[in-house]
C-alpha cells in the first residue's frame, strides 16, 4: 500500500466513523441551541428541571453517528436502537405514557383547597383558555398568506394548546396529533412558563386601571374540610371524563394523584408520586423532548411561526383571563381584583405569584396569593379539558 492510498483510507474512516467529519451546520446550530438552554437553566434558573435535560437531549440528538435516537423497529437487530429513540418511541410517540405520569405527580403535589374555597375561580380558568383557540385559528390563517408554511388542523391544535401554558398537556396533545412539532411546542410551552414574569405584567397593566389593581381582597379564604378535599377529585374526575372521555389520560391521572394526596391513607404512594416518580419521569420526558429535535426536523421557518403563535396564545390567554376578571369584578358583590384572571393560565405557581406581587405593588395591604392559586389550578384542569377536546376530534383510542 502506498502512502496515498493509506491516506485515502484514513480519510474514509474519519468520514464514516468520526463525528467531526459528519458535523454539518444545522446540527452544529442545534447543539449551540442546546448549550443555550443549559446556560439559561444554570445561569438564569429558567425552568431548570425542564430546560437543562431538554438542552442535554438536544445536544445528544444532534451529535452525529451516535445512533442514540434510532427508534426500535420490527426486525431490527438487538442493541441497534438508541436509548433516546426507545424513550421517544415508547414514552412519547407510540405508548405516550410519560406525560400522564407527570400529571399524576402534579396531582399529588397540587392543593386544590383555594379552588374549592372559591369555585368562581373555575370560570377564570376557563376564560384563560381562549388563547388556545385564537392561536389555533392563527396557525390555520398562515396557510392563507403563505400556503407552503400552512399548518394542518392537527398541527394547529398542537400549536394552540401551548396557550394553556401547561407542559405535559402540550406534550401529550402534540405527541399524538403532530409528533413532528412536538419538541418545539414543548420547548415553547416551558419557555413561556419561565418567562411569565416578563410576559404577563405588561398585559395586566395594559388592561387594568391603577384603581382596579389596588382593589383589596380579604386575605383569608374559608377552611376546606378533609372530606371536601377527598370528594373533589372524585367528583371532578367523573364529571369531566363523562363529558369528554378523551381527557381521561390527563384529567384522570391528575385527579387520581390528588386523591392519593388527600386520602391520607397512602402516604408512601403519595410521597413517591410527588418525589421519586415525578423526578424519574421528568428526566425521561425532558431528555425525550430534547431528542425529538434533530436539526432536520427543527431547521424550518415554520419553527419560528410555532414559537410566535405559542407566544400569541399565551398573551391572548392572559388578556382574556384579565378581561373576564374585569367582568366578574363588575358583577361581584364583594371586592374582586380583576388581575386574578391572569392567573387562569396554568403556569403554576408562577402566574399566581406574579398577580400576588403586582397586587402588593399596587396596594401594600393586598395579599392575593391564595386567591390567585384558585384560578391557577383551575387553569391546569381547563387546559387538560381543552387538550382532551382536541384529541377527541382526531384520535380513536
Amino acid at each position, binding site marked *: 500500500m502506498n502512502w496515498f492510498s493509506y491516506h485515502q483510507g484514513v480519510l474514509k474512516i474519519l468520514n464514516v466513523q468520526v463525528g467531526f467529519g459528519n458535523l454539518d451546520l444545522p446540527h452544529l446550530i442545534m447543539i449551540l441551541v442546546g448549550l443555550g438552554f443549559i446556560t439559561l437553566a444554570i445561569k438564569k434558573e429558567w425552568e431548570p428541571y425542564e430546560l437543562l435535560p431538554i438542552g442535554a437531549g438536544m445536544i445528544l440528538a444532534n451529535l452525529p453517528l451516535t445512533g442514540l435516537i434510532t427508534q426500535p423497529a420490527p426486525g431490527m437487530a438487538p442493541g441497534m436502537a438508541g436509548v433516546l429513540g426507545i424513550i421517544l418511541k415508547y414514552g412519547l410517540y407510540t405508548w405516550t405514557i410519560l406525560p400522564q405520569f407527570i400529571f399524576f405527580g402534579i396531582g399529588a403535589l397540587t392543593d386544590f383547597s383555594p*379552588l*374549592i*374555597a372559591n*369555585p*368562581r*375561580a*373555575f*370560570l377564570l*380558568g*376557563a376564560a384563560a*383558555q*381562549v388563547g*388556545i*383557540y385564537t392561536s*389555533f*385559528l392563527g396557525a*390555520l390563517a398562515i*396557510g*392563507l398568506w403563505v*400556503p*407552503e408554511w*400552512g*399548518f*394542518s*388542523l392537527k398541527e*394547529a*391544535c398542537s400549536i394552540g394548546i401551548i396557550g394553556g401554558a401547561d407542559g405535559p398537556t402540550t406534550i401529550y396533545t402534540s405527541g399524538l396529533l403532530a409528533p413532528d412539532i412536538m419538541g418545539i411546542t414543548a420547548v415553547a410551552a416551558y419557555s413561556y412558563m419561565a418567562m411569565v414574569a416578563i410576559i404577563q405584567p405588561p398585559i395586566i397593566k395594559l388592561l387594568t386601571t391603577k384603581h382596579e389593581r389596588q382593589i383589596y381582597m380579604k386575605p383569608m379564604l*374559608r377552611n*376546606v*374540610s378533609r*372530606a*371536601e378535599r377527598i*370528594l*373533589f377529585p372524585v*367528583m*371532578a374526575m367523573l*364529571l*369531566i371524563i363523562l*363529558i*369528554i372521555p378523551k381527557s381521561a389520560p390527563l384529567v384522570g391521572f391528575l385527579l387520581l394523584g390528588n386523591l392519593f394526596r388527600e386520602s391520607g391513607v397512602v402516604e408512601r404512594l403519595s410521597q413517591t408520586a410527588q418525589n421519586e416518580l415525578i423526578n424519574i419521569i421528568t428526566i425521561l420526558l425532558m431528555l425525550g423532548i430534547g431528542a425529538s429535535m434533530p436539526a432536520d426536523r427543527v431547521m424550518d421557518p415554520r419553527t419560528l411561526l410555532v414559537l410566535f403563535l405559542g407566544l400569541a396564545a399565551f398573551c391572548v390567554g392572559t388578556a382574556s383571563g384579565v378581561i373576564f376578571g374585569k367582568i366578574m369584578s363588575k358583577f361581584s358583590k364583594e371586592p374582586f381584583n380583576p388581575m386574578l384572571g391572569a392567573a387562569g393560565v396554568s403556569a403554576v405557581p408562577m402566574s399566581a405569584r406574579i398577580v400576588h406581587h403586582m397586587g402588593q405593588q399596587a396596594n401594600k395591604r393586598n395579599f392575593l396569593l391564595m386567591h390567585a392559586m384558585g384560578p391557577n389550578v*383551575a387553569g391546569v*384542569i*381547563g387546559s387538560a*379539558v*381543552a387538550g382532551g*377536546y*382536541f384529541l377527541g*376530534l382526531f384520535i380513536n383510542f
Partner: protein
Amino acid sequence: MQPATDWGQAWTIVGGGLMAVFIIMTLLAASTHLMGKLFQGVERRKKERAKAAKAAEAEEASA
C-alpha cells in the same frame, strides 16, 4: 404544503372547544359550590349540636 383549510370545520372546533371548556368549568364551579354548602351545613349542625349538648350538660350540673 398543506391542503386547503376547511374553515367551517375550524370554526366548529373553536366554538365546540370554547363551549366544552366553559360548560365543564361552570358545572365544576356549581357542583363544588354545592358540595361546599353541604359540608359547611353539616359542620355547622355538628357544632350547634355540640354546643347544645354542652349547654344541656352545664344546665344539668347547675341543677
